[in-house]
């Protein structure tokens, strides 16, 4: 089973909102938190609706609408999203007002919008789309589960065009809270373009909303083919990851040598980056290497940013310099593999191909 990526819409810490552009200008963040560059929402949202919405909802709606427009689709046959943290800003707002007001004078809006399915529900509501609607919320498998479901739904013939997206926001408060358990670097500021050379623990926080139309047919718009996604939970060692990747590629009739470009989830955290280098230096020593978390930051659904990157690489047959690790060894780019993990427990592999 394969699925065509027939539309894209993405809000990220880079200038990605214009789907025709491909990282022509890199935004260098000198921070421990890479915030998304938000578009103007006026075009996408009636102000009367937007007034209640937190950032992540607005970002996601804008990204999904751009995506639908890109694919020239009005109503998708299914809406499937992945988010690990849901709507944090509203969750924190409601939680804090419970504590501060001792459970009195609370208003419903932030509670209603705190639920993890708010984004997929809001998109459905805006589009008056009554079709299949799902929200996956499993840490580093959230977006990956959404992709798996999408591919199964296409295979079942239950849908021709699916709107699938990954979204997570990082609030200032949650960034502080995650800092307490060692997620981020201890430095006060981090030059993210140097992240790959870092030899200290911790990464930098990120966020974003990336949406795709996955279709069962190739169109003139098709960016790439998604051949599959594989999730690997708490592998015991690198050997297990290697074996799973080889089996996964084999199921698609490919070998490691067929992979032209591998995008690694290297995040500058000395505790985990070794995982990527081991795979890079064994399985994929002949492939071109790239990375992306210096551009989008570390977050649970960062795989959705990587999938956008892979699709654009395949469509344009170019790899932006800022993405490359080492030299570009590929003349023609047929197959791109993404190997990503959030912390080290939820590891995922995506395979995208030229179409």
């Amino acid at each position, binding site marked *: 089973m394969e699925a065509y990526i027939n539309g894209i819409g993405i809000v990220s810490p880079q200038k990605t909102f214009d789907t025709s552009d491909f990282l022509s200008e890199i935004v260098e963040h000198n921070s421990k938190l890479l915030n998304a560059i938000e578009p103007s929402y006026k075009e996408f949202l009636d*102000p*009367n609706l937007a*007034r*209640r919405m937190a950032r992540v909802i607005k970002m996601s709606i804008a990204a999904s609408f751009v995506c639908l427009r890109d694919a020239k689709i009005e109503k998708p046959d299914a809406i499937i999203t992945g988010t690990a943290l849901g709507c944090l800003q509203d969750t924190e707002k409601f939680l804090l007002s419970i504590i501060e007001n001792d459970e009195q*004078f609370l*208003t419903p809006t932030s509670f209603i919008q705190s639920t993890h399915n708010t984004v997929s529900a809001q998109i459905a509501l805006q589009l008056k789309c009554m079709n299949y609607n799902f929200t996956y919320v499993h840490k580093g498998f959230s977006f990956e589960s959404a992709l798996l479901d999408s591919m199964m739904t296409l295979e079942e013939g239950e849908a021709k065009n699916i709107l699938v997206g990954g979204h997570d926001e990082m609030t200032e408060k949650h960034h502080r809270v995650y800092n307490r358990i060692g997620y981020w670097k201890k430095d006060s500021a981090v030059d993210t373009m140097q992240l790959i050379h870092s030899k200290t623990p911790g990464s930098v926080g990120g966020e974003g909303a990336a949406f795709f139309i996955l279709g069962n047919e190739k169109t003139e718009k098709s960016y790439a083919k998604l051949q599959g996604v594989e999730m690997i939970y708490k592998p015991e060692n690198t050997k297990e990851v290697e074996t799973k990747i080889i089996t996964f590629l084999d199921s698609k009739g490919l070998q490691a040598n067929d992979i032209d470009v591998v995008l690694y989830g290297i995040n500058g955290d000395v505790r985990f980056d070794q995982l990527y280098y081991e795979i890079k230096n064994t399985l994929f020593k002949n492939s071109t290497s790239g990375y992306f978390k210096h551009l989008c930051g570390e977050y649970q659904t960062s795989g959705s940013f990587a999938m956008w990157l892979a699709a654009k690489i395949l469509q344009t047959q170019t790899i932006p310099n800022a993405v490359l690790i080492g030299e570009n060894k590929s003349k023609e780019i047929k197959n791109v593999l993404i190997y990503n993990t959030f912390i080290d427990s939820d590891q995922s592999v995506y395979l995208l191909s030229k179409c």
Partner: protein
Amino acid sequence: MDALIEQLKGEIIKQLNLEDLKPADIDSDAALFGGGLGLDSIDALELIVLLEKNYGIKVSNPADGKKIFQSVRTMAEYISANKK
């Protein structure tokens, strides 16, 4: 009553995040729901909290909101009649 109406308009804008509106934009007699400001049932619940928090008036049946929140004026009248 007029002072209360003006005050209420400001409070409604704040409570409901009607960022683009100024008190003068709200007609005291226009319908708050349906047409008018285009408010919905979630806003009605927000306004019930506004009454409790700012005026100490408790509305326990959300259905009562329909009558109270017809317009800013009916809301002000309800507050004057029930304020403790």
